[in-house]
């Protein structure tokens, strides 16, 4: 993913055109490479090489059966060279020579088998038709051996198919191996043909084998690490097939040196296979997949889809699924999941948990989430801490042991695992914490920490690959650690991805480069450090090895020396007829072997004594002056042996005097081998009888057989017959080794010697390792195992150096100096590089930006030019002002053709041909390099004029002088005309504005929402708000809150209908808070279509003064009326009473006077009422109470009221109405209106006239007519009759009573009811008053 990102970026930056192709090629190449790799390269790399060679040293034992005596004769050792070697190659088949070469300890050939196999070069399987015969199975074992999977092996000794069965898993020198066994149950192993030299074999008898073969193989590579067999060969009767006596019980096993070498070899092969089979193809495949993914998704989409966020998400999900799968695998304990999930997590739910947390961190790392990643980071840190503590031994949860399957893990493994993962967890856990440090240092830290994690991981990988190198006690990384390291790498990339993304940091590429450089330089440092350390180490190791060789040789030589001495003793016996005790003493003293070669206990002579000779032997010995002599231990036996001479004959050796060695099995085996072979023979580990004090040491004996004087028999039976005794030497093993090496042993090297093939504790002859090394704590720096063959027995010599063997101050310090110097230099180089990269990137970014800007501006220029060409009239003139270019627009407008215009002087376009001042100015400007712009009048071909806005600019040559001139003209004739129109309309506007501004009315203009757009100076004077303060405000600022709400409601309902609203009822407030009455008119101004409201104009005037006056007046009238009414009432009522109480005493004149007074007071009362009504109307105190009235009923009431009057004048009264008619109005006011009109009509109609009251109805209105046949109203006075207190001339004389208020009231009241009053009058003919009232107020 990282790689892809890099590719994407590189591509985008440097190869913008080739992107797609490159990815196709890359994808195909990677895919092809994968196929090629898997099909060809992998087999080629992994096939068995032409120079294949496998060799091992085998320690072989034989234990032949003594048919005569009916028992096994005892173990004899031999050494075997076991090897496979490629000898020829045919297509795909390798011919392998397998050799099994048995020799004596002294390297004398005993027996040798050689076979030729033909095997498949890739699989290692035997192929028929090749080699010396057809065989089944594998040369060793198949590769990728599954746990429990059986296979067939072909072993040289048995030459039959060995069907191997899985036994278990073991660890050899740190390498996991599978152990397989077979007993060849299904195959008969017959050796008759090869053993015809044995008596009777091939004639009457045959030989069959009962083998038990054990193999240790490395399962991935299928390499043989070790084999051991344990086989009994039996004779059988050829005819009856009946099994007879055994012939030989033999065994073969690899010596430790070979096993060690094989593990190293197998480990290398295994690593190589993993790289070749898994890692490289996976990498190639991933590259292929991502390249193709990149092709499928188009680059634009990819930028989105392959964003780092998505890559991060993919990584997170990947890790999460691995972790979950691992967890699942652990839960069900599936062997297969362990095997196929190549990650440490698979083994450990603890690790799985960590990776789940890690995955969540990665997924959240780009989101707004801040605290959860920190929390998870802390958890991972804690786990890391626990693991570290475990590794340090502070706590011992043995979590891995608890959680892992026990068969997989050991405590040591767990500890190592803990140590390996702890550091990783600690580092990883820190990442989210560090990344959340608020900016500043954060960026560096956030980037550096993942880098450290990556370095750690890579180092872990590296260390895994070179695990053999053990410097600075870095423990070898287990497979699990290796996988964990891979995961860390994976994970830290993701975390790195997540956090390194920032605008201010270097690009990913830059960081990769720097990290890469740092990584490479540090890697180089590590390699150099390791190499330096290795050089020292090799030097020290070769010193060590040299020491071991010297010591091994010395020990071997010393034994040979002793054998030589014993042979010399035998020589003494062979050459003498009799060797006396004194002579033997003198001989041994003469050799002075203890002085020259210390380590030997002495040299003795032991003879066989037959039971019948035993007492004589004891007697003769006693006679020699040893009265206590006896053959020990006592008891009856078939044969006795007796030590008769043992020099020096000191207290210790005296313990052995007369000891029967033949009765003890270990000694007897050696004695028999010596007897049968005639060779010196060494015993297995024994304890000497000489051990008399507390310091008991293991010991051994070497026997040289003595067959008598001048006798050297050649066959076994002759030897057995002739044997007399042994020249022998007892050894205490520590004394022996110290005799060779001195009391202090080898400096700084521990030596452990074991007898035989097993290195078990029971076979230990000598061990001083613990003097050098505390094995419970330290590991030896170097170890070496040698096998020496001494007197028929193998000895295993294990050398262990001290922990710091050979180390000097220099060897310790120099690698460290290299390391630290390297790290410092690496850091410096990386830092320098980082600086360079940073500045380079900055420059690159800048360059990119500049390029982009340039491209953009070029495109812009082109766009401008094409737009200009379309919009303007363009000409280019040469230096002499001759037109050399004219665009189509110009030709079109002017009417010239190209021919007519090119080459002409540009002045042909001018309206006036004379050289004016302006024209001179233009050319002066442009010839000096300036740009001129102005309005010019041009003319067309046909002479019509047009205005242009012309810009003339010089096109300069290299030296800055005008080369050509560019003239760009825009037609502005329309504009000119518009300007003129505008000018005149401006003047109009100006006038209006003046008018508005000088108006005495305050004028406000608001937009439809009520926001003030304009106020005139009068407004400012009136309200105190300045122009600036008022603009944008709502006129509500003027509201005092005292205006009745109803006024505003009416206002809104009126103006929202688009109608003009007027009132003088507003009580407004100035800026300073004082209030005033406003007479206001609001005009909603609509657009021309009369549909949309454009603005409101409000014209208002301060009418406070008028209002005050009006109120005072009306109050005066009101008070006056009241004050007049009460006494008037008193007068009236008194007069009324007076007339009642005193009628008799009064004469007719008095009564007449009384009546006149009563009438006058009544009239006066009416006048006052009328005046009061008038004033109330004026004060607006009358509000109509609308109710339903039946017209006919009301007419009848009115008729009754005036009946007295018309009857007095004998006037005919007629009332016309319809019973159904109903009117919505105020009853009282309606009556007042009609009553006034009727009274007038009757009053101004002469006697015997006629008055008619009639009502008519149309759709909307009732029309009430009051007709009379009276005096009429003079024409010239008709228009005044509704005026207050007006009375017409023609009635003044006839009807002096009358106040001139009636008609005024009628008109006012009618208006109040939403109606109108009109009249028609002819002098002396009569008058008709018409009152029109709406059917109901809603139709107003």
């Amino acid at each position: 993913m990282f790689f892809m990102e890099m590719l994407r970026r590189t591509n985008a930056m440097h190869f913008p055109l080739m992107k797609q192709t490159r990815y196709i090629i890359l994808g195909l190449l990677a895919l092809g490479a994968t196929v090629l790799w898997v099909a060809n390269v992998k087999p080629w790399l992994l096939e068995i090489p032409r120079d294949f060679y496998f060799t091992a040293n085998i320690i072989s034992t034989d234990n032949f059966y003594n048919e005569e005596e009916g028992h096994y004769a005892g173990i004899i050792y031999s050494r075997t060279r076991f090897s496979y070697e490629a000898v020829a190659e045919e297509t795909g088949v390798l011919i392998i020579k397998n050799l099994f070469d048995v020799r004596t300890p002294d390297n004398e050939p005993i027996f040798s088998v050689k076979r030729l196999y033909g095997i498949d070069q890739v699989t290692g399987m035997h192929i028929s038709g090749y080699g010396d015969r057809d065989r089944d199975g594998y040369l060793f074992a198949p590769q990728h051996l599954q746990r429990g999977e059986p296979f067939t092996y072909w072993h040289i000794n048995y030459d039959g198919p060995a069907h191997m069965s899985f036994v278990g898993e073991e660890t050899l020198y740190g390498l996991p191996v599978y152990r397989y066994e077979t007993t060849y149950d299904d195959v008969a192993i017959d050796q008759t043909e090869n053993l015809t030299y044995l008596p009777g074999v091939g004639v009457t008898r045959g030989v069959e084998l009962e083998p038990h073969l054990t193999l240790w193989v490395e399962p991935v590579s299928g390499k043989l690490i070790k084999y051991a067999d344990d086989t009994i060969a039996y004779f059988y009767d050829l005819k009856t097939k009946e099994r007879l006596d055994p012939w030989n019980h033999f065994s073969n096993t690899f010596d430790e040196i070979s096993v060690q070498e094989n593990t190293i070899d197998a480990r290398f092969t295994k690593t190589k296979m993993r790289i070749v089979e898994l890692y490289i193809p996976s990498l190639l495949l991933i590259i292929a997949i991502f390249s193709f993914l990149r092709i499928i998704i188009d680059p634009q989409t990819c930028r989105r889809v392959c964003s780092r966020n998505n890559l991060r998400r993919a990584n997170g999900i990947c890790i999460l699924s691995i972790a979950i799968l691992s967890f699942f695998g652990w839960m069900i304990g599936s062997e297969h999941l362990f095997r196929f999930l190549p990650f440490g997590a698979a083994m450990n739910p603890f690790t799985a948990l960590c990776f789940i947390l890690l995955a969540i961190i990665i997924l959240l790392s780009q989101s707004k989430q801040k605290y959860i990643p920190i929390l998870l980071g802390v958890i991972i840190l804690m786990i890391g801490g626990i693991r570290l503590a475990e590794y340090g031994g502070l706590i011992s949860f043995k979590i891995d042991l608890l959680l892992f399957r026990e068969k997989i893990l050991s405590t040591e493994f767990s500890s190592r695992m803990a140590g390996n993962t702890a550091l990783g967890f600690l580092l990883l856990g820190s990442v989210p914490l560090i990344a959340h440090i608020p900016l500043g240092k954060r960026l560096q830290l956030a980037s550096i920490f993942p880098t450290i994690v990556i370095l750690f991981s890579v180092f872990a990988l590296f260390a895994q690959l070179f695990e053999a190198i053990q410097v600075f006690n870095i423990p070898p990384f287990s497979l699990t650690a290796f996988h964990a390291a891979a995961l860390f790498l994976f994970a830290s990339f993701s975390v790195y991805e997540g956090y390194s993304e920032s605008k201010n940091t270097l690009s990913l590429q830059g960081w990769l480069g720097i990290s890469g450089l740092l990584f490479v330089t540090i890697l180089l440092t590590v390699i150099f450090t390791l190499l330096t350390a290795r050089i020292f180490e090799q030097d020290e190791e070769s010193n060590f090895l040299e020491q071991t060789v010297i010591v091994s040789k010395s020990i071997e030589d010393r034994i040979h020396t002793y054998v030589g001495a014993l042979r010399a003793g035998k020589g003494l016996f062979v050459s003498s007829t009799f060797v006396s005790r004194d002579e033997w003493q003198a001989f041994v003293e003469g050799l002075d072997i203890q002085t020259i070669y210390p380590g030997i206990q002495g040299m003795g002579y032991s003879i066989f004594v037959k039971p019948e000779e035993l007492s004589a032997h004891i007697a003769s010995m006693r006679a020699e002056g040893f009265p206590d002599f006896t053959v020990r231990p006592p008891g009856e036996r078939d044969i006795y042996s007796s030590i008769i001479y043992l020099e020096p004959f000191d207290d210790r050796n005296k313990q052995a005097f007369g000891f029967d060695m033949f009765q003890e099995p270990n000694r007897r085996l050696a004695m028999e081998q010596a007897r049968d072979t005639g060779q010196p023979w060494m015993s297995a580990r024994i304890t000497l009888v000489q051990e008399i004090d507390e310091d008991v040491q293991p010991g051994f004996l070497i026997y040289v057989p003595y067959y008598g004087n001048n006798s050297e028999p050649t066959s076994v039976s002759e030897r057995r017959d002739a044997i007399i005794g042994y020249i022998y030497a007892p050894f205490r093993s520590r004394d022996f080794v110290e005799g060779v090496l001195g009391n202090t042993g080898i400096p700084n090297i521990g030596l452990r010697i074991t007898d035989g093939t097993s290195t078990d504790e029971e076979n230990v002859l000598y061990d001083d390792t613990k003097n050098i090394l505390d094995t419970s704590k330290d590991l030896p720096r170097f170890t070496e195992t040698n096998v020496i063959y001494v007197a028929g027995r193998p000895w295993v010599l294990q050398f262990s150096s001290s922990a710091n063997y050979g180390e000097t101050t220099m060897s310790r310090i120099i690698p460290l100096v290299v390391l630290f110097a390297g790290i410092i230099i690496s850091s410096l180089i990386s830092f320098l590089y980082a600086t360079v990269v940073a500045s380079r990137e900055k420059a690159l970014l800048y360059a990119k930006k500049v390029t982009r800007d340039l491209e953009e501006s070029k495109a812009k220029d082109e766009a401008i030019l094409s737009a200009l060409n379309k919009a303007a009239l363009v000409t280019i003139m040469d230096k002499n002002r001759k037109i050399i270019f004219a665009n189509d627009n110009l030709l079109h407008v002017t009417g010239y053709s190209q021919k007519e215009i090119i080459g002409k002087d540009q002045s042909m376009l001018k309206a006036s041909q004379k050289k004016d001042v302006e024209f001179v100015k233009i050319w002066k400007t442009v010839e000096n390099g300036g740009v001129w712009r102005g309005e010019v009048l041009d003319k067309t071909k046909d002479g019509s004029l047009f205005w242009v806005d012309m810009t003339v600019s010089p096109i300069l040559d290299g030296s800055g002088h005008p080369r050509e001139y560019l003239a760009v003209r825009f037609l502005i004739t329309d504009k000119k005309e518009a300007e003129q129109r505008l000018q005149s309309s401006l003047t109009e506007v100006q006038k209006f504005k003046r008018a508005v501004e000088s108006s005495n009315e305050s004028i406000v203009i608001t937009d439809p929402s009520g926001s003030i757009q304009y106020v005139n100076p009068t407004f400012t004077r009136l309200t105190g708000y300045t122009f600036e303060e008022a603009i944008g405000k709502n006129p509500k600022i003027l509201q005092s809150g005292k205006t009745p709400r109803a006024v505003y409601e009416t206002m809104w309902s009126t103006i929202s209908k688009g109608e003009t609203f007027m009132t003088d009822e507003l009580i407004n407030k100035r800026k300073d808070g004082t209030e005033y009455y406003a007479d206001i008119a609001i005009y909603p101004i609509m657009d021309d279509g009369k549909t949309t409201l454009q603005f409101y104009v409000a014209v208002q005037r301060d009418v406070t003064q008028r209002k005050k006056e009006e109120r005072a007046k009306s109050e005066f009238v009101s008070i006056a009326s009241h004050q007049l009414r009460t006494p008037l009432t008193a007068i009236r009522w008194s007069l009324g009473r007076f007339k009642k109480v005193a009628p008799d005493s009064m004469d007719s004149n008095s009564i007449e006077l009384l009546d006149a007074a009563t009438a006058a007071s009544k009239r006066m009362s009416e006048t006052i009422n009328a005046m009061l009504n008038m004033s109330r109307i004026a004060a607006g105190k009358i509000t109509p109470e609308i109710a339903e009235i039946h017209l006919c009923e009301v007419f009848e009431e009115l008729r009754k009221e005036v009946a007295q009057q018309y009857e007095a004048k004998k006037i005919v009264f007629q009332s016309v109405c319809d019973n159904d008619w109903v009117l919505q109005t105020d009853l009282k006011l309606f009556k007042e209106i009609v009553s006034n009109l009727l009274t007038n009509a009757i009053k101004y109609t002469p006697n015997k006239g006629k008055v008619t009251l009639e009502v008519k109805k149309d759709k909307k209105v009732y029309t009430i007519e009051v007709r009379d046949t009276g005096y009429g109203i003079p024409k010239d006075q008709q228009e005044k009759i509704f005026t207050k207190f007006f009375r017409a001339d023609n009635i003044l004389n006839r009807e002096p009573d009358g106040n001139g208020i009636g008609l005024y009231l009628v008109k006012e009241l009618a208006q109040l009811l939403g109606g109108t009053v009109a009249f028609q009058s002819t002098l002396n003919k009569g008058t008709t008053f018409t009152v029109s009232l709406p059917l109901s107020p809603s139709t107003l």
Partner: protein
Amino acid sequence: MKHSILIAEDDKFLAETIAASLQDHGQETHIALDGEKAIAVMDEKQPDLLLLDILMPKVDGYGVLKHCKEMGYTFPIIILSNLSDDVNKESSKEMGATDYFIKSDMDEDDLWPMVEKSLQ
């Protein structure tokens, strides 16, 4: 039947005219020329009817109405005023007046039928 009628009217002449007119019909009348006096008289005499003007010195007609309400008097109260607007008519009825008449609209002849009607 003889009733006790209290006339609260600041115009002395009118008050006496009313009193005389009612006495003609055999009624006992008391005159109070301001609201304060009217309250004093009614508390003392417990009239059967109160004829009350609105505009009076010291305590106006409303003040008297308020007092009657507070004292829980149940005798009828007729307002005789020259305030002809509806506001006064409505509010005085709310405050316990039985009837409301405008003096200038009435003749002396109308007085007794009105009083008689109330006394019933």
